């Protein structure tokens, strides 16, 4: 069995090993912000950025890019949700406006949140939204309907091989996180 002197030599090594283990557990959590920062810089997972400004943007009249719109409604979300047009053709740099329609078909007030995503992922860096319903949550009363708008422009630096991209919105029911407010709004 280990005598006392051995126990003493074990201690510094043990402390170091436990530190590595603790560090790796924290590293798992650190992966979350790291992942988000990495995707934000490279835009590789199709996540779009926050609100952009439309200032001094040069327009490339030579180029035409097709932008398609896709809407999906998540499980447990009784809303109708679609874009009024399936796709538009745009010049990079030009500010475009697209209308979306949503209707709460249930008998309850519901809070919805849409999450945008761009495909191919690398195009996400070049899609700038100056206005979007996805920046806020929507609260619709039972049966209420609403027209929502997104305004965006494509960067003129959009890689040459991309001439068609898809902006997709997934609509989630987030009422659970807003139970109190929904209940009092009745």
């Amino acid at each position: 069995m280990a005598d006392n002197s051995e126990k003493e030599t074990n201690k510094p090594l043990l402390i170091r090993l436990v530190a590595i283990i603790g560090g790796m557990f924290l590293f798992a959590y650190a992966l979350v912000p790291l992942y988000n920062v990495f995707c934000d810089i490279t835009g590789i997972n199709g996540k779009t950025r926050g609100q952009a400004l439309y200032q001094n943007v040069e327009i490339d009249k030579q180029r035409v890019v097709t932008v398609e719109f896709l809407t999906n409604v998540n499980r447990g979300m009784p809303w109708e949700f679609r874009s009024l047009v399936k796709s538009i053709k745009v010049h990079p740099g030009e500010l475009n406006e697209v209308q979306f329609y949503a209707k709460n078909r249930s008998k309850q007030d519901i809070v919805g949140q849409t999450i945008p995503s761009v495909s191919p992922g690398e195009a996400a860096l070049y899609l700038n939204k100056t206005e979007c319903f996805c920046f806020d949550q929507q609260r619709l009363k039972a049966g209420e309907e609403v027209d929502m708008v997104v305004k965006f422009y494509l960067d003129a630096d959009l890689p040459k091989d991309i001439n068609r991209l898809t902006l997709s919105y997934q609509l989630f029911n987030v009422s659970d996180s807003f139970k109190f407010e929904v209940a009092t709004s009745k």
Partner: protein
Amino acid sequence: MSDHHPTGIKRWLFTTNHKDIGTMYLWFSFVMFLTGGAMAMVIRAELYQPGLQFVEPAFFNQMTTMHGLIMVFGAVMPSMVGLANWLIPMQIGAPDMALPRMNNWSFWILPFAFTMLLSSLFMEGGAPNFGWTFYAPLSTTYAPPSTDFFIFGVHMMGISSIMGAINVIVTVFNMRAPGMTLMKMPLFVWTWLITAFLLIMVMPVLAGAVTMMLTDRHFGTSFFDAAGGGDPVMFQHIFWFFGHPEVYIMILPAFGVVSEIIPAFSRKKLFGYSSMVYATASIALLSFIVWAHHMFATGMPVAGELFFMIATMLIAVPTGVKIFNWVATMWQGSLTFETPMLFSISFVILFTIGGFSGVMLAMAPVDFQYHDTYFVVAHFHYVLFPGAIFGTTAAVYFWLPKWTGKMYNETLGKIHFWMSMVFVNLTFFPMHFSGLAGMPRRIPDYNMMFAEFNMWASIGAFGLGLTQIFFLVTIIMAIRNGKKAEDKQWDGATGLEWDALPSPVPYHTFATPPKVD
């Protein structure tokens, strides 16, 4: 030196003896192996023919999930820890593991962890059904309530294997006999030391992943929930950051085992000892930068696909060094083919097949076709069954005479080997073809065109199941009335356990450290 030890149940509950704990680990992993194997029988019975015969699709999913979890965490990993407990102190001339009380604890957590995991089968809503990789949101938003038991089960077995790894590292660093320098250690000790470092690096990450799942499920976080700003793809990154090193955790100790057995039965020294050590270390280092090869189909940018593809293929280089090393060791040796050697040779051959299909899967462009098909199932079963499990089996036959002082029956051992060899290939080889033809994994029913391949695979699987019972009987017969083993049962074997200790080894060994020169 007295050889006194307590008797009865207390001996096993309170033991801090590395040999007792090693024995318990090995038996526990065998019980789990049969449990996970029984689930595989359910899966193969259902897949014997197209259509639904025996089980509901929902239950089928629970079977594939539990089979994977039980085999990975309950059978393979504990069996390797069992071997480590038995062998490492004897091979480096230490009286015991460095932290014997923690050793006891790390074993006794396991039965509770797996009771908890298995109990989920009897709960309302059934057991976890999302596959052993538990991708979010299947394991968060859409998972059965029993998933929380799975999460705590994973926490517990993670703590157990982290404690086991700490014990190995401290033992190897602080308990070596005088003169036993690092580069004199047997390769089994080396591979386990590197495995232990992998374990303490990635098991905490797994613990983090399941903790995030838990808080996503119950405490309003949204790590993996897009509605709250999270990202389900991130789950896959975190999981495979653990998951790829995990496959080396399961195979590296087996590399160590065959690196001991092949020289013994070739009556030659290992062809290149230090190249083997460096190859093992490079495999371990590379394993941290290849995780996204499991995610080629998630829509990565081309640069990412290229990086992970090339990094993955790079692993073939140190692995090739190992394979050639084993072959060169056998080259012009005076070979004999006792059971442990047979298992080791087939390990080299079949693991190489698994390695090749791995290189195929590493190629990003073709992976889009192979992804989530039976080709993947064939690949990882080829590296796990003839890899990890043949390795452990070879170790059991090789060291059983040392552990128990009894010899197994060589004829029965050889029958066991040939049954394993035939049925392993019959089970898993056809899966390459059904996979290439497009059969998806984790489905209870399939297209008629895959019927033949699946029938053969199922017949093989039933045979493989029987083979394990045969193995059990062979081992019990050896322990009960095997012939008395010699102190150095294998004339070509080297190492302290053969040269400095009698068979069976006494309960306490190396109270005074041996001389190593």
